[in-house]
């Protein structure tokens, strides 16, 4: 049964947030249901599909496997924040140009995972891209266009575009 609510303070996309949450609430539900940040999606809630990928203190995590209370005192970044800051604008543009999404449900998680790769390895080959995105399920595309888009972004960044 439910234990009493817990107070947490954290930053979400740079904004201070204070909330009182049930201890069993996971971070993805907290973002979606409490903060209406519905760009973080849920596909499995057991850590396999990657739809819920967000950044926690700069590292990517599966928000369905992190409890909201574990984010207390930490910094969360979601697709909404990464879009607003412009950090992944080129990657988003490449996804659009290459038609690397159909329904788009995997896309926020896919973009955050891809950006994580590009920050660590600016020149990944196709196999490395596939490998890094292997925790992000997409049912619609054949992954091929996603790999194309990440590849094109890496090249664009290398050319200083």
């Amino acid at each position, binding site marked *: 049964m439910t234990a009493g609510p817990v107070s947490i303070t954290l930053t979400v996309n740079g904004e201070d947030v204070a909330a009182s949450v049930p201890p069993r609430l996971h971070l993805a539900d907290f973002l979606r249901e409490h903060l209406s940040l519905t760009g973080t*999606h849920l596909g499995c809630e*057991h850590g396999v599909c990657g739809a819920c990928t967000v950044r926690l203190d700069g590292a990517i995590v599966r928000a369905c496997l992190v409890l909201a209370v574990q984010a207390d005192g930490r910094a969360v970044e979601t697709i909404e924040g990464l879009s607003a800051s412009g950090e992944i604008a080129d990657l988003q543009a490449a996804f659009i140009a290459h038609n690397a999404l159909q329904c*788009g449900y995997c896309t926020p998680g896919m973009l955050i995972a891809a950006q994580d790769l590009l920050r660590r390895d600016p020149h990944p080959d196709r196999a490395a891209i596939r*490998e890094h995105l292997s925790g992000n399920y997409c*049912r619609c595309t054949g992954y091929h266009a996603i790999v194309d888009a990440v590849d094109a972004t890496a090249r664009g960044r290398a050319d200083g575009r």
Partner: protein
Amino acid sequence: MDADPLSPLDRPHSYIGRSLPRPNLARLTQGRGRYVSDLALPRMLHAAFVRAPYAHARITAIDTTAARAMPGVAAVMTAEDMAPLVTPWVGVLTHLQGLRSPPQYPLACDVVRWQGEPVVAIAAATRALAEDAAEQVIVDYAPLPPVVDAEAALAPGAVLVHPDLGDNLAYSRRIDTGAVDAALAEAAVVVGARFTFGRHTGVTLEARAIVADWDPAEARLTVHQGTQVPHMMQSVLATHLGLSEAQVRVVCRDVGGSFGIKIHVYPDEMATVAMAMRLARPVRFVADRMESFVADIHARDHIVDARIAVRADGTITAFDVDDLTGIGPYSAYPRTSAVEANQVINLIGGPYGHANYRARARVVFQTKTMMSQYRAVGHPIAATVTETLVDLAARRLDLDPFEMRRRNLIADDAYPATSPTGLRFEGLSHHAAHARLRDMMGYDGLRAEQAALRARGVHRGIGIASFIEITNPGPAFYGVGGARISAQDGAVVRLDASGSVVVQASVTEQGQGTEAVLAQVAATALGIEPARVRVQLGDTDAVPYGGGTWASRAAAIGGEATWQASVALRANILALAGSMLQAAPETLDLRGGAVVDAADGRERMTLPELARIAYFRQDTLPRGVQPELIAARHYVPRDYPFAFTNGVQASLLEVDVETGFIRLLRHWVVEDCGTPINPMLVDEQVRGGVVQGLGAALFEHCRYDAEGNLQTTTMADYLVPMAGEMPDIEVAHVSTPTAESALGAKGAGEAGTAAAAAAVLNAVNDALAPFGVTITELPITPEVVLRALGRG
């Protein structure tokens, strides 16, 4: 139809056939999609279900007292509580003669017939509270023997899923044309096999989601649903909730994947709507992943015994087929669960020119999750059976797989043609597609490489699979059987006061790019940029009536309706411009957002200027001229029951004979969808379809134990294809437009799925040829490979 002197393809500045990016993607990349699972309405409640823990059991008692008393719980409902609210449904159609299925209810009454069948529905303030309450419901069951195996279900004395029906046979059909026995007797080679196909399911990344909202003051029900078929659902909801269709609005914005899963009527969704009506509060149900595995439609649970008769010169003379499929305890509503088996026996042998064909399909009830249409209905089964047999026969005759197919594929100049199963082909391009594929994959080089690697103990395989695909079905598919499922779609196109264009259409967007395609079509007819066309879909209050998205029809049928409406609007615009400019309308054209002289392209008046006068300065128009800057058209194919497409796929892979692991190296597809309106979108549709087929080939399987318990209820147990295991997929096109429509477009949504598994199976068997073994089972897991090699 309004005559247009130019075909869509050669109009100046045509956007048809161009790979333009989709207009609606920016918001999806920024997390601004509007999926039903994101939707929160004021006072909204959340649904959860108590589901059957047994495959087959009698419910002896239900105690909801504790659950009802819990804080935040608004309703706890059983079948008895649902009875006055929802009438049961029956998944039969009159043209599927003999198909039987008992009435199905939103919640199980008396007997549960699959593990996961909803028994009690709960609405509470949050999903977590609803789940807590579900745990407090006590249901007593008396277990009954399960009916798991489809063959055993037909054996004398088998346990009956529905005792009233007398046996477990839901449907059977036979086809017998030509002289199959004579062909078998005269054949130089007869090869046969038993094929078994693992059940799998759609695994849409966004699960099924619905928000139902009943407004008692207006007596109107609004249902927000991730669906492919808003008008079908409007009709279903009205029929079974005792409302008129005018009282029901179905809204579908973004959908996180569908693939045929979101086209059926689900008991848990009907129960959700009933709770919303009872409580007069919005209720949301979003299936969790486990619920998706046990309650989403499954597909492809088939056992096929089949053989092929071939002359010494490689000519195929006959197929003889027996298909058995288990569909769970009910035929799905309203499209039934007989269509898959029907399509299997209609499609087997489809690419080839044999004259003799015999088949039987039997569809049986079981106590497993329900089975019905999922992407490429029946096609992967038909292609796998056909293409494996063709390859086995070729091997016996020592013919190369391409050469074997060349000798048997229907000639490209032989159309129109009719198959022995009665399928009518308007125009296909098998030989052109095979030539293109062979060239694209560098076939001869791959064979040389394969031989060299084999000498070093590396076992590569090359597999080819031809296919035909049913697209653009006409009313003979469902409408003729009595279902309120429209084969027609409509489009309304208007020029607004700003000179921009709005298209409202009855087809829907599931991510395949419908909005983009309709914008390109309207923009082409109206001579404006696609960016100035806004497309509105998925709202029964706003769009014309129509079928929605199924059987690869949205682009071709919705596109044609949009084309016709746009051409009609164009005629209205030109007539109006003619009266404003004192010019004959036929001397004018629309290009670059303006009315121009057709002869030399000189601009006479921009569309915003024309619209300004039409909407605000009617006083300047001649008497009797009334601007009508809106046009509506509907389209349904009538000449052919379906627009068949064709294509061929190839797989290159490597089998590790020590571990049984299969590594996919490359995959190629050549397909012919007529006019591709946006080739980039078609390519990724095909690739996405291929990957679903590859999943079925190697990984995906809804595994049951002997008691009918589903063993694969998480994504850790049910394996889906991920980026790391998938190869690059090269796609090329041959184009044989249909003459039935102005655009000439056929469907493209299922081609990839149709033959991917067949190509992989042929490649695996090609790799294993030196060992003299043949696999005829999907998915081809490492265990299956090792067992075949006698190492398991």
